């Protein structure tokens, strides 16, 4: 008898696919061969028309739902929405969740061994973009026998991949689910990323990205980057509710140590992240965010870009998200209505800021489920 909830997928085994065909990247560079680690949930139907691609955001990986062992305390990053009877109902859908190229969860990335040198890629791993990811994901679809995704879904950077799918392979996607995302980063978004990268790159242990060779990690730089990022994921309200001005000790110390609970929390978040995540990957992921701008090729006209898409769109945003605010989602909606696409857009009340797409919220789950339930698939 397992300890998991009845609507949990239980223990999931990640799988790996090796790709030999070189992938040409937006930068002009190529990756000759690479591994993609992915998980699947549910089963592909006879017609192969029930597949849903789930795309992860900055710091997540292929492990989107279920657990990796019976004793695992935490499920995958979107377990809230993926499983039997959940919004992405694995009784209906076959869900594919890959770890992106450049990631540090098993798919080929800066930590992987470069076959040409026999050493870790480190800074030699090329910068990859959202569009590059969609290209490898298309190959993954081919390998799994999926001609067309019923839906491609993701939040934040994951939502950007869903959007890019609708643009890059219009006939291979029926629904794009874009949650808490943006059509491109604002100057402020890029600025935050720039500071995060500086924190990493100015860490003495960074060694210009070759820290693996020195058997060290730029943990303090990565920690600061995450602390900064974490502030942008939470809302002012949520931080206020959670910590207020609570102090760690009863008496103030009047020194430069950690005095307030919010500081202690950020230190903890930063440290645990630095222990599990790779600094080069963090640099790469923030660059992928910065470069994302699907309208660039059309002179900034996103509606013109969307006018070539064939899919239907579902967008959602959360009221206190200031990283990718509702306003940013409405920019996408405006381009979609201008280009006469089918789109539904919902704005949910939440005080969880950007992280709200990962947090239980009855209205969000009900709406997401209702939309997914209307996606037609064969028996």
């Amino acid at each position, binding site marked *: 008898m397992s300890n998991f909830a009845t609507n949990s997928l239980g223990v999931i085994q990640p799988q790996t696919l090796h790709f030999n065909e070189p992938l040409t990247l937006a930068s002009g560079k190529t990756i000759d061969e690479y591994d993609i680690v992915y998980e699947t949930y549910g089963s592909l139907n006879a017609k192969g028309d029930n597949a849903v691609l789930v795309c992860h955001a900055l710091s997540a990986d292929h492990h989107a739902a279920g657990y990796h062992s019976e004793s695992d305390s935490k499920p995958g990053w979107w377990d809230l929405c993926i499983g039997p009877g959940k919004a992405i109902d694995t009784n209906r859908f076959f869900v594919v969740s890959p770890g992106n190229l450049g990631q540090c969860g098993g798919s080929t990335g800066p930590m992987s061994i470069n076959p040409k040198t026999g050493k870790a890629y480190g800074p030699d791993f090329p910068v990859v973009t959202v569009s590059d990811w969609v290209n490898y994901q298309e190959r993954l679809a081919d390998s799994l026998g999926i001609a067309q995704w019923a839906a491609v879904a993701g939040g934040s950077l994951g939502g950007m991949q869903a959007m890019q799918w609708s643009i890059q392979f219009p006939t291979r996607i029926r629904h794009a689910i874009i949650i808490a995302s943006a059509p491109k980063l604002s100057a402020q978004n890029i600025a935050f990323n720039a500071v995060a990268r500086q924190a990493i790159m100015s860490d003495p242990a960074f060694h210009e990205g070759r820290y693996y060779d020195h058997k060290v990690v730029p943990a303090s730089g990565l920690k600061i980057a995450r602390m900064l990022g974490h502030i942008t994921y939470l809302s002012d309200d949520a931080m206020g509710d959670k910590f207020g001005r609570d102090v760690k000790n009863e008496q103030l110390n009047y020194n430069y140590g950690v005095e307030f609970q919010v500081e202690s929390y950020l230190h903890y978040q930063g440290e645990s992240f630095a222990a599990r995540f790779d600094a080069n990957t963090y640099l790469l992921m923030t660059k992928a965010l910065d470069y994302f701008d699907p309208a660039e090729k059309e002179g900034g006209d996103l509606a013109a870009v969307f006018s070539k898409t064939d899919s239907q769109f579902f967008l959602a945003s959360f009221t206190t998200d200031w990283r990718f605010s509702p306003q940013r989602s409405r920019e996408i909606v405006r381009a979609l*209505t*201008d280009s006469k696409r089918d*789109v*539904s*857009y919902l704005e949910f009340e939440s005080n969880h800021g950007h992280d709200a797409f990962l947090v239980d919220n009855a209205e969000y789950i009900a*709406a997401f489920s209702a939309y997914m339930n*209307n996606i037609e698939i064969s028996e």
Partner: protein
Amino acid sequence: MKGLRPELQKIFGWVKPGSRVLDLGCGDGALLGSLQQNRGVKGYGVEIDPANVLSCLQKNINILQLDLDAGLTEFADNSFDYVIMTQALQALQYPHKTLREMVRVGRQSIITFPNFGLWKHRVYLSTKGRMPVSKALPAQWYDTQNIHLCTIKDFEMFCKEHSMLISKKDIVDYEHRSDTLMRLWPNLFGEVALYQINGE
């Protein structure tokens, strides 16, 4: 169409098949759903109430959860054949701004509202000296959503002053029947006003 409330049936008849429609304050999506299924109409519903939004999603309607009082900035000029707003005008914070936006976005705009000039309201106010409460306007003055009620005369004056042309109108009772009194003295006997307007 069967199942639609009388007012929506009337509008259903006004909308040309195959047109693009924006339904503002679309409620549970009854009209848009019916137009989509039976008239080959395409478009979007706009609604703020979460329960209604969910109901529209379940009906497979393109639903946009936006606040009408924040304007229709999501929509380009003349991007719809019809912009429809039924029984919502009087609940808006800035009805004049929304009307101007409707005329900007739609080639035709269809608007319905309860006629506050109805003789019953006039009698209620003049004899009781209190704000009229009726079947159509059941709430008390302090908790009513209807914060911008107008009469048929008010609306037509507004259209005139804002260069909006009335291309169709229908003054009816709550069951959407008309009679001689309503035709002769619409502002006194009309219970519900339906208008189709457009910019010059």
